[in-house]
């Protein structure tokens, strides 16, 4: 059950996702029996860990909640330890459709990209999120544009695939609590090929989003500063 059988690892971070986790893992198992996956149970206070154990899923239990960044980094560290060539990260809440995994790893397999982002805004299909969130996403997109001259539309998408280079980079350092936009700045500044591919996202099946209205102001300020600091730390390039 746990031995490595492929070069592709699908990382599924899960924090209190007892309602969704079986659905997403079964979908991955049914659609991609050829790929490996690992569920990172990020110190959940519900029975997410027990469910993984009961079903015999390949899973890692973090004893304390690390936050999404720390959980994903655990997945990347596992990928490095097990020597995987490609890692795909997909949210444990059922928002991302595993059917697109094949498409987003294709450019990496063909060596056309190092970092692929599954984006809901390239073709504007499926669940598009609320107006306020889209405004926030556009703001970050604009910020990335002025910080590093790279157009990325869906900067907060947690549906991504990376090659071995980034597995190594992210195993060493991954931004901690709202990591997605900062990770893009980091990747662009490393002068790697970033590609955005259209995917269709679904509305969450159950559970709550990690970002509510109260936290959103804090989120905007923190992520903006993080991105700027990340950009500055690379000095003058391009």
């Amino acid at each position, binding site marked *: 059950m*746990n031995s490595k059988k492929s070069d592709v690892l699908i990382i599924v971070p899960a924090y209190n996702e007892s309602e969704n986790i079986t659905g997403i893992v079964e979908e991955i198992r049914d659609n991609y029996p050829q790929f490996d996956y690992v569920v*990172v149970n990020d110190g959940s206070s519900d029975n997410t860990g027990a469910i993984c154990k009961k079903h015999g899923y390949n*899973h*890692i*239990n*973090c*004893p*304390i909640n*690390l936050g999404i960044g*720390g959980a994903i*980094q*655990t997945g990347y*560290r*596992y990928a490095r*330890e097990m020597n995987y060539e490609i890692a795909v990260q997909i949210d444990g809440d059922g928002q991302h459709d595993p059917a697109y995994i094949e498409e987003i790893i294709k450019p990496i397999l063909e060596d056309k990209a190092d970092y692929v982002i599954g984006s809901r805004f390239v073709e504007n299909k499926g669940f598009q999120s609320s107006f306020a969130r889209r405004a926030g996403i556009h703001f970050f997109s604009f910020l990335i544009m002025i910080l590093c001259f790279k157009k990325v539309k869906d900067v907060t998408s947690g549906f991504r695939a990376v090659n071995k280079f980034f597995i190594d980079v992210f195993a060493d350092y991954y931004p*901690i609590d709202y990591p997605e936009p900062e990770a893009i700045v980091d990747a662009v500044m490393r002068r790697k090929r970033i590609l955005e591919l259209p995917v269709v996202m679904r509305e969450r099946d159950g559970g709550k989003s990690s970002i509510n209205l109260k936290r959103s102001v804090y989120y905007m300020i923190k992520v903006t500063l993080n991105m700027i600091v990340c950009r500055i730390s690379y000095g003058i390039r391009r």
Partner: protein
Amino acid sequence: MFQIIPPRLTFVLIFAVIVYFIIILSLLKHKKLNMKYTLLWLFTGVAFLVLVLNPILLFKIIQILGITSTMNGLFIILIAFLIMLVLSLTSIASRQASRITTLIQTQALLEKRVREIESKLDESKEENKE
């Protein structure tokens, strides 16, 4: 003109610094403080003592800074030290947070390996029984 620290206040301040050093030393002795993180506190105390014992030096420094009262100058210098201390504490806390994260991740990865090894052991035991 400038007001030099009154003699009585000088004694009070020196006494306070001595008490401060005694507290730090006793904490160090009982291993409740790490020398690494205590150096800045000791240095602050020494600097404060030097300034209190050397009113002329204090006088010159505050003249350069453009402060008109000796006591104000002493307070401002002390506040500057405190800000540095708090900042260094925040930096220590951040460093520890990232180290704890690394530890948790390593522990989680190890726990997974142990779990796998145990299940393999159980399997081979059952095979042996058969």
